[in-house]
């Protein structure tokens, strides 16, 4: 959830205000909460820990401008919001994320459950992402024939994934 005031940072301060018997809920980031004069009590939450870790970890200019070709998020934006845009970001930001993962988890490789349908192969997943983006563009450009073709293609790929 993003801060309702700056709409950039993650909201970590949740307020319930009562003004003349009218209740209003507000969700702010710490910075905006401070600017509005709300006392922020020390809180421990994962988001803060992550932001703290991200801040402590110096990011080079090269890393900050890394951009995902699929969802267009930059590494700098991710650092600000604490949320990634799409699964492909894990590959695009692999280098700087490695340090983050080490700090949060003390590890960089998965050792747990594997989905039965490992048809979740990475290439096919990314292709689907790209097809969906093209579909969106076709709809926005009012190219409906192309959109219908893309929609069918996405459906057939998804069904293939399900049975495969």
């Amino acid at each position, binding site marked *: *959830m993003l801060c309702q005031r700056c709409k950039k940072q993650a*909201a970590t301060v*949740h307020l319930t205000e*009562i003004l003349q*018997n009218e*209740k209003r*809920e507000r*969700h702010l980031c710490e910075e905006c909460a401070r600017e509005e004069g709300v006392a922020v*009590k*020390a*809180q*421990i*939450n*994962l*988001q803060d*820990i*992550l932001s703290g870790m991200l801040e402590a970890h110096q990011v080079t200019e090269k890393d900050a401008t890394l951009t995902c070709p*699929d*969802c267009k*998020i930059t590494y700098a934006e991710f650092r600000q*919001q604490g*949320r*990634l*845009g*799409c*699964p492909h970001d*894990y590959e695009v930001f692999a280098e700087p*994320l490695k340090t*983050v*993962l080490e700090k*949060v*988890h*003390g*590890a*960089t*490789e*998965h*050792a*747990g*459950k*594997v*989905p*039965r*349908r*490992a*048809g*979740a192969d*990475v290439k*096919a*997943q990314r*292709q*689907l*992402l790209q*097809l*969906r983006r093209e579909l*969106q563009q076709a709809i926005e450009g009012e190219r409906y024939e192309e959109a219908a073709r893309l929609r069918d293609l996405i459906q057939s*790929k*998804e069904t293939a*994934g*399900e049975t495969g």
Partner: protein
Amino acid sequence: MKLDKLITSPSPWLQPGGPQSDLVLSTRVRLARNVAGRPFLARLRPEEQQDLEASLKNAVLKALGPKHITWFELADMAEIDKRCLVEQHLISRELAAGEGPRGVGIDAAQQVAIMANEEDHLRLQVILPGLQLEEAWRKADEIDDQLEAHMTYTFSPKLGYLTACPTNVGTAMRASVMLHLPCLVLTRQIEKVFRAVARMRLTVRGLYGEGTQATGDIYQISNQASLGRSESDILQTLGAVIPQITTYEKQARELLATESQTTLDDRIFRAWGLLTHARTISSEETLTLLSAVRLGIHLGRLKNVDMAAVNELFLLTRPGHIQKIRGAELTESERDVARADYIRKRFAAQ
């Protein structure tokens, strides 16, 4: 299952009788999953979010059967109902405050809740009374398999289940145990517990995850790391820490009961007196007093007080629930009066 009934009936995870339920209120296991071939929530367009919610709802109902699970849309749900579901730990604050099409599937036993379009596409939780880490994981794992038969998850062999926030990547599992630790708080040893727990990559939060200022001496301990270790490894670490904490709490209880019995009794009986006689009471004071009464029952000092009623009141006296019970929107001071009234009647009726 009707939403009103779900909200006003006692939460099964708060029922006494679970393993070690004197100190452990409940156990929860949560898994985060994202559907392959789609961006994470922050980058979904409104129509994509709509489409995703519909397909997730469909998959959940197909996988678990519409007889076993009821789907609730959040977009058109009343604020008070959302608030109550958060208080019941059936949805997250993030889902309640989110925007656009999103929903939750809840089973009749209120053990399973599956949120769609929260921070991740899918958040599956199993919540059980008492200490039941293995059981909660087994059930979550089983439902995860059932759901997977109807969709493909985003998964990388190297990083595991991919999540919108890298703090959850890997197993994407968060297991947490809710503990009642009044005597560690009274003897000021709780900070020591926090420090010990932090060294094991575990986290401590309050009843509603609002930080270390836990309300009603209730603390949730959960794993911080989700990558690099298997689910059973993570559960083992957590499972090994809990008995140590509960042993310290028991020792603190014995110490207080022998060395400062009068002070402890005074605390317990004052709490009981206030709860059964107050005419206006805040939700924070209620939690503090309920904690003392709960302790009094376990130490055998308070006889003939129903533990189920005490556990229930931890939830039913929250601001959302007290308004739901009254069937009206109330100001804070009206709530305090309604709360005191409800507590008196609940204990008089037991």
